[in-house]
């Protein structure tokens, strides 16, 4: 148990430090990000039970968010941190708000809702302490990423989330839920848009690929972990048989018996090794989910571009109608034109009224097109900046993750050598 604790502690510190390092280097030409002004951490997790929305008893986990002003820390004062407890669902609410409010930003993902890519031993249960612990780390990582983002870190709702108990009312007041794009609209845009920005299409393709590779990797890794577990555990059987065998031996007995103990230790060592490797899996999962966020930004572009195209199309057709009415020349087929031909033209007053209406609509339409153009261009501009930022971050993070993975493998090899060397010494004493 104490070994477990020290491992968690060291990993916690490791992730803390690596997160901090990343965030302190964060590009922030828009001023200092929140994380520089405030120390944030998700310190603890606790089980709670209470009545849910349908008045049924449920058990859930809450996480303690602690914050402290950075300058106090820097000055060496050690004030007690402000703290509040939040559930996973509240983190989800915050993220959804950010997604809607900043559709041009690749919004950092949350740790997974349910345990996926598990290998057999790992509990898929949300209440499992290991799962809760890794989720705690993941939630902290999420907050740190958001708080160090040049745009997101300035959001007032984020601030409320971190410091105010009554944040939910505030976030609902923003009415963000109404602004959310309908899925159907977004999907329709994907299929019908004519001239999306090529770079965004490439980026969307990239996000698909990234998602595919990370999920393949996670699945393969889980299978490997499962098999490796089996290999190590079978060696434990040597421990038992050596012990039994040593009972009938004279000179060989001691050596065999102690070698057997080392075989037991070897078999047991796989548990910690694979637990540590879960953190590598978590890093991959973060980018699996990040790929989703990247795709969302590209989809938003498709949507804004599509809406612009629709608005432009609409404007053109209205202008054409106006021209027809004004000049009397029918260029395109229209029902009105047909009825005019059959039943005679309408009265001049009616025509005038319709021309006037069209002119108003055209004016509106031109405004709409202007708006949509600005919306589209702004989205493209801002999204492109953030996607570049994301790419740099991803390259750096994944590179470090791969290096850390290599470090873990080395550690595993060293342990293996140690165990077998111990056993060898015992064999030599046989």
């Amino acid at each position, binding site marked *: 148990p104490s070994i477990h604790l020290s491992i968690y502690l060291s990993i916690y510190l490791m992730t803390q430090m690596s997160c901090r390092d990343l965030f302190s280097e964060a590009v922030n030409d828009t001023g200092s990000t929140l994380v520089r002004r405030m120390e944030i951490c998700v310190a603890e997790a606790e089980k709670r039970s209470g009545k849910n929305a349908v008045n049924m008893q449920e058990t859930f986990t809450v996480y303690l968010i602690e914050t402290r002003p950075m300058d106090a820390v820097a000055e060496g004062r050690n004030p007690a941190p402000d703290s509040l407890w939040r559930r996973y669902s509240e983190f989800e609410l915050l993220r959804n708000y950010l997604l809607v409010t900043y559709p041009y930003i690749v919004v950092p993902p949350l740790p997974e809702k349910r345990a996926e890519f598990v290998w057999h031993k790992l509990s898929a249960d949300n209440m499992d302490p290991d799962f809760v612990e890794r989720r705690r780390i993941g939630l902290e990582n999420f907050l740190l990423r958001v708080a160090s983002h040049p745009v997101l870190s300035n959001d007032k709702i984020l601030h409320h989330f971190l410091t105010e108990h009554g944040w939910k009312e505030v976030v609902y007041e923003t009415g963000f839920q109404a602004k959310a794009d309908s899925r159907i609209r977004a999907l329709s845009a994907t299929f019908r848009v004519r001239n999306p920005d090529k770079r965004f299409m490439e980026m969307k393709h990239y996000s698909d690929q990234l998602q595919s590779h990370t999920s393949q990797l996670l699945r*393969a*890794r889980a299978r490997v972990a499962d098999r490796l577990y089996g290999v190590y555990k079978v*060696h434990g059987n040597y421990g038992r048989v050596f012990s039994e065998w040593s009972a009938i031996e004279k000179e060989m007995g001691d050596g065999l018996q102690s070698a057997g103990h080392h075989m037991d230790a070897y078999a047991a060592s796989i548990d910690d090794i694979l637990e540590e490797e879960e953190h590598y899996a978590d890093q991959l999962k973060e980018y699996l989910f990040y790929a989703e966020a990247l795709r969302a930004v590209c989809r938003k572009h498709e949507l804004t571009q599509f809406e612009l195209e629709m608005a432009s199309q609409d404007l053109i057709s209205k202008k054409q109608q106006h021209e027809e009415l004004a000049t009397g020349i029918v260029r395109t087929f229209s029902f009105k034109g047909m009825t005019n031909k059959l039943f005679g033209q309408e009265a001049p007053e009616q025509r005038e009224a319709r021309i006037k209406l069209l002119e108003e609509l055209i004016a509106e339409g031109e405004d709409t097109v202007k708006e949509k153009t600005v919306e589209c261009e702004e989205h493209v501009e801002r999204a492109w900046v953030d996607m570049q930022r994301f790419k740099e971050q991803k390259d750096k993070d994944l590179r470090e993750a791969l290096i850390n993975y290599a470090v873990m493998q*080395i550690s595993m090899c060293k342990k293996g050598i140690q165990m077998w060397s111990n056993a060898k010494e015992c064999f030599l004493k046989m």
Partner: protein
Amino acid sequence: MSVGTPRGLASSGQKPIAEILHPLSAAEEPLSVTVNLGGDKEAGLTNGTPVETSSPASTSSLFNRLQLDDDLEADVRDPYAETTETRDLFVTVSDPKKHVSTMETYITYRVSTKTTRVEFDLPEYCVWRRYQDFDWLRTKLEDSQPTHLIPPLPEKFVMKGVVDRFSEEFVETRMKALDKFLKRIADHPVLSFNPHLNAFLTAKDLNKRQGLALLTKVGESVKYVAGGYKLRARPAEFCAMGEYLDTFNQKLGTIDRIAQRILKEQSEYLTELREYGTVYSSWVGLEDELRRPLEGVAGCVTTCCGALEDLGENMSQDFLPVLREYVLYVESMKNVLRKRDQSQAEYEARLEAAILRKQEDRSPMPVEVEKCQDKVECFNADLKADWERWQSNKRQDFKQLLTGMADKNINHYEKCQAAWESLITLLQDKQTEDKTSETN
């Protein structure tokens, strides 16, 4: 080399047991023997006479000559060697060759002998033998030396279609086992003087009908009437031997099963690991900055796969066969124990019968009964000595086997560790390279 009182080998002499000290009972004493075989009734062996008087080469010059010999290196490390100065029979099995004829295909092995013993006409021999010949030799030894533990041969039958009898690995494994078999016999103070061994090592064409006469003479006393005689009380030490062998056999079986299970698990792990490596490789094409680390990881995984394959091969080629050999050894030892029991039973039965007759007509103890008693006591003495010897060899064998297993595993991890460490160096170099180019 100490010159002690002349001692005879109990099993080949007619002396009463009380006068004989078994040469093997003092295991540390080096043996140097001159042998007069061939019709000598008093086949007493004298211990301690320096060899130079009767053999073509003196011990010391033999030693010197052999120092230059490559074979000596291997034998020096041989756990069966008593001490190099006193061994005068060196046997090696090597050079497997395939023979293809219209009737059959088989492998022959070169059996090389170097010796200073007088029973051998020449100091060196080189003959070619196939498995059948080894099998013949073993049968002959079992029949002519029923009181001794005869080392086992590798398994005779292999399922055609399941195992390739001509694959390099199979032949290599079998050859090592045959080599061990001969070495154990050559190092045995009694078995190494067996005429069948001599024939095996020297005859150009092994006439396998040789020794038939010997077989029928000795066979009688050994080919035992089942259900004829019943054993009254087995001496405790032989009971202990039987129990030990039973338990030991069980443990061997368990270890074999565990080793096979490990091989299976490792093989499945290897399959997944290979797949895992290809996922990294396929990702490379998508990235630019991450290309190197991804390729690097894929490369390391491939290296680990290779190392794992080697480990598996080693275990199945070097570890499992030795275990199986010992299972066969245990089986043949249990047979010898049974024969000992039978021999004791016969003696007891005859003794009882003779005592009854003696009470009736006051005739002296018949010679057969005395002969039986001698037989039993010789058997017991031989067996005890061989047992000690076997225990000692077994300890060496398993020490070597298990240490070897540990070494192979250590080696495997070392290979993997080296691969990952060089990746880190590579990536960190690149990192500093990039940093300096950025600041420039």
